[in-house]
């Protein structure tokens, strides 16, 4: 199972990596939406976890772009963000986000949420 994590915070990437690889997932990383898209061009992943606030290309744009490409219409994308405001979440979902994880995340919760969206 491969997870692409997209976040501009190294801390967050490291913590996601630790949690996910500890649970046996293979982890790919990207520092912003654009780099996330670049990764998806060359790699197949089972699920994406993405931050919203990022430079170059933010999470919302990233999700829109992923959904726009035919190959990834059914790729689960989880929004990882501290923004619990309904507005951000709705934006993410409107763009095609599958679900969300609230930062800071509880490792067990993260894994269980992942299992809610991946086979």
């Amino acid at each position, binding site marked *: *199972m491969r997870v692409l994590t997209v976040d501009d915070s190294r*801390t967050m990437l490291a913590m996601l990596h630790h949690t996910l690889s500890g649970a046996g997932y293979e*982890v790919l990383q990207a520092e912003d939406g654009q780099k996330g898209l670049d*990764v998806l061009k060359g790699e197949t992943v089972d699920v994406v976890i993405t931050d919203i606030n990022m430079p170059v290309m933010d999470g919302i744009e990233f999700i829109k772009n992923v959904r726009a490409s035919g190959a990834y219409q059914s790729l*689960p994308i989880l929004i990882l963000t*501290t923004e619990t405001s309904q507005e951000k979440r709705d934006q993410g979902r409107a763009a095609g986000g599958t679900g969300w994880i609230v930062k800071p995340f509880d490792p067990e919760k993260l894994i269980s949420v992942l299992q809610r969206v991946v086979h």
Partner: protein
Amino acid sequence: MSDLDEFKATYFDECSELLTELEEQFVAIEEGERDADRLNAVFRAIHSVKGGAGAFGFSGLVGFAHEYETLLDFVRNGKVELTDEVVALCIRANDIVSNFVDAARSGEERPDDYGAEEKALFVTLCSGEDDEVSGEPVEDEEFDIDFIPVTVDLESQGGDSRAGWLVEFAPHRELYSRANDPLLLLREMAEIGEIDVKIILAEIPALADFEPFAVYCTWEIFISGENVDEEKIREVFEFVEGDCDLKINAHETNAADDGADEDEDMDGEDFPSFADLAAEIKPKEPAKSQVVKPVTPEGDEGKAAGPVGVQSIRVDLDKVDRVVNMVGELVITQSMLNQQMDENLKAHYQELVRGLEVLAQTTRGLQDSVMAIRAQPVKSVFSRMPRLVRELASKTEKKIKLEMVGENTEIDKTIIEQLSDPLTHMIRNSADHGIESVEKRIASGKPELGTIRLSADQAGGSILIIVEDDGAGVNRERVMQVARDRGVVGEDQQLTDEQIDNLIFAPGFSTADAISDISGRGVGMDVVVSNIKKMGGSVNVRSWPGQGTRMTLRLPLTLAVLDVMLVKVADCPYVIPLSVIVETIQSSRAEFERLPSGDRVLQVRGEYVQTVDLATRFELSSEVPDDNRFVVLCESEGSSKVAVIVDAIIGQQQVVIKSLEENFESIDGVAGGTILGDGSVALILDVQGLRAVNKRRNAA
């Protein structure tokens, strides 16, 4: 180191970078660059600091950063105007965030009300524009995993424990378009309780009318179990709320019977039961593989190379130094091997020659890589200076602008870390004593705005950090007076202008109180200077009355490998850093002129240059006739030149600097030692030092 500590280390590293970036952004913002990108970057930086802080439970920081972030969000959305006052508030807020981070790093806690004043200002600013937000209490944080509010029917919960819930679930098309999957939801339901699933297929049309993306199936799930409640069920459907019709009803009748009955009905109609299926679908055991695949986004090879998640590792500097030293030895061995290869051997063992060439190349590469590990751009220190100048300008009511050049010059990490204090003092000196008040500047026909120029440059084996101002220059009379009063200079002692200028850094000249309010640590300038000397560096002051002052901080590129010219004097090898050499001239062609003192000066293109005969300087007896000797014209500090006279020029090569102080003692005019290819020791000349020594001799 525990995982958590490691994450914290990463977090603090990241915070340092973010805070440096904030500082830079605000410098630009202060100068009026207030475009959306910049404001977004500022917002993101604080957002990231807050995010990590939340993960590690730094509650004070989270609380503060949250309010600050809200303000920044308002600012970037144009809801709060970015006035100069707001900018000033933000700069203060950056300091507070920085202090929170520092405290957290050293394991302390700032009191919770730290920064309360600023925090209150944030709230006021934001509330002026939007009452809703101000009404929101700080505690209403987003760091609890929130659940969708539920209404729980207490009666039904208190009922029969074997009772359950009937969930009617009818997905909409959007549910699929967001990559949610009913099967996974059923699987999760099976996790929290016993489920019995019925799929309703009645809506499925004939094949001809079948639309691939339309939704035809709905489900009825009966769930029971000790821990099942409506909240848990809602949580499963958290992501699809709004993308489906969901009805959750408490079911008090005997669930098992009900389910069984319906099951039978379904079976009768040949509808598949998903009960077994759902029970079977246990959450997948994730693969055991721990393989982490590095991601290398195109065009970003350097950055993403290496194992993912480990973008930096923390290594003890000692370990790096050991590698650096060994690489140094390797370079020497390699060049020794090279020298042993005479023409005869070369002709016979061509393979060996080729091998040696490859070795040389690899060694060079290895050396560069190792040095790169220790080197960092000087920017990290420079970036703190604009702010210092701003503060000083407002405190002294002068108009000062700071120009920075060469911020990307890379310097050894250890040196960078020690650069902050000297720079602070030098710049303070320029702002305080160098640049004149606006009135004075106008009176002396200068532009109102004073300029301090901060530059970094690599010059041979040294890094030159120069702080230059266009102020009044050192007030030599006053400096002498103070120096005499403090006993730094004896009553009858006469000093040259240059010596007087340099007194400002002399031990005992400056006092701690004079600088404590800036450095905050009360470190005197003399301590700073002695620290620089400990690193093998030097400080030099030149001043031109009425025109300005230039302070030059010369720091060694300690671990650097030098490109040098190998010369000989009385059969002893010496090396001169290639970067200081302007040209070499045969003695017979050089135009010398003798001064009344007996010293010779060299005339080069109409310029008189001081000469230093290495043989005389190092008290060697050269047997080479004068006309067969060579002149190596070198550039020393500033643009002044020195003509070094040697017996012979051997050639050009690379050497590893070995500290003389560590192995022997410091000698004027000698920057260090090195071991040559044949194993002999050569001294590395310090041209600036040679010149100074010679001057002193002349003076004596």
